[in-house]
């Protein structure tokens, strides 16, 4: 059997090894992605984000359980931050998901966000899981900073998880997450201030592209509200399909991906060009203040006929 067949038939070892190749952006990984590409695009990708400790992993485990009850196969990608110095990481999201470890229709993979390319990596890991036939793919990521937004942007449905807050203003307003969520979850609804947080939130979120973000209250530890949450996710999926926004959104994503690949190639080509001595004069002149960097760039542009 060739690689594509083994992936399509659900061979977990092949799948797992390929994800590693894709994660490290190897030749083998890229070659496989080329071949698998035509089998992708069937899975619905759900991004789950929120501050550390709001209950994302516990919630993901519950969501997966609910999906399995509906006989939907699931892939999970759990992204955890890693040390920028050592590259090391403790990937602990799985602790809350181990009950699902032995379900043949569930595949869970932990990824460390060491590289700045985790957005692209996650996208390609999703493609592999998608080609392997998973119906829904859930990504967990901490909602802070550009890295997480890159990861979240690959999701069709973005779920923002909050917890009850006592303050007047919801923390997430500052983080800019109130503009991007399709579904909002107030988890830990068993704690104080849940209703209050919900009403504050409902004032803050607005309709976008004909969709009013839904707010769902959950208690991930008991499973309460999770059925409603999964319904809300599917309602958003249906909205995307009906409104042609799904195609529009994915077209935008494809465009920026191809452009990104091109830019990267061009960049490499330029670096190679400049590593020879041809323009070293110009660089020296900039260093000696005989030229400014802008004029220098213009000179090179002209010289290269750009």
């Amino acid at each position, binding site marked *: 059997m060739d690689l594509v067949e083994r992936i399509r038939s659900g061979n977990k070892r092949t799948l797992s090894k390929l994800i*590693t190749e894709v994660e490290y952006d190897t030749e083998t990984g890229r070659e496989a992605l080329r071949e698998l590409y035509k089998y992708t695009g069937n899975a619905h990708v759900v991004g789950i984000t929120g501050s550390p400790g709001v209950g994302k992993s516990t919630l993901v485990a519950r969501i997966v359980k609910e999906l399995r009850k509906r006989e939907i196969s699931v892939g999970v990608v759990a992204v955890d931050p890693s040390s920028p110095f*050592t*590259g*090391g*990481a*403790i990937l602990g999201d799985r602790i809350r998901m181990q009950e699902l*470890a*032995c379900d043949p229709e569930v595949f869970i993979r932990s990824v460390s966000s060491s590289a700045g390319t985790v957005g692209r990596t996650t996208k390609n890991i999703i493609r592999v899981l998608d080609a392997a036939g998973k119906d829904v793919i859930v990504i967990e990521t901490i909602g802070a900073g550009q890295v997480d937004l890159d990861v979240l942007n690959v999701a069709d449905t973005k779920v923002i998880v909050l917890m009850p807050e006592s303050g007047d203003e919801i923390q997430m307003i500052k983080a800019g997450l109130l503009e991007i969520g399709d579904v909002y979850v107030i988890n830990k609804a068993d704690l104080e201030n849940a209703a209050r947080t919900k009403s504050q939130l409902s004032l803050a979120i607005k309709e976008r592209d004909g969709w009013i973000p839904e707010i769902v209250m959950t208690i991930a530890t008991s499973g309460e509200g999770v059925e409603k949450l999964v319904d809300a996710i599917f309602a958003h999926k249906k909205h995307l399909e009906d409104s042609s926004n799904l195609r529009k959104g994915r077209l935008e994503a494809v465009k920026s991906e191809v452009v990104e690949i091109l830019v990267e190639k061009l960049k490499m080509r330029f670096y190679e060009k400049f590593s020879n001595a041809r323009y070293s004069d110009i660089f020296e002149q900039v260093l000696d203040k005989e030229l400014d960097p802008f004029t220098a760039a213009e000179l090179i542009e002209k010289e290269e006929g750009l």
Partner: protein
Amino acid sequence: MKKGKNIRVLIAKPGLDGHDRGAKVLARACRDAGMEVIYTGIRQSPEQIVETALQEDVDVIGLSILSGAHMSIIPRILELLNESGIGDIPVIVGGIIPPDDVEELKRRGVKAIFGPGSSVNEIVEFIKSIT
């Protein structure tokens, strides 16, 4: 292992006891040594451990075991690893294990066993040496 790739270690606690201090200390030491640690917590069944190793494509499996049930649990894990086609992943064990059992487990394929006197550094160095 591939060059430039981080070592991925699964640290799991099979058996029924809930003492995970040792496992956590090792997890942190591995992280500080630049490894990616898949930490699954306590009370893991052999099936869960092997499935996790399979899905996470780990380079090493570290088992922390105190419950005394090691002679039933560890051979079962080794057997399942072989059945799943990942018998090549080295397994190391930390815990209190009588010398006779140590020999027997090694004979069955456990790469190394670290008793209560071992330092985490020693374990980290060993993991580096076999990956």
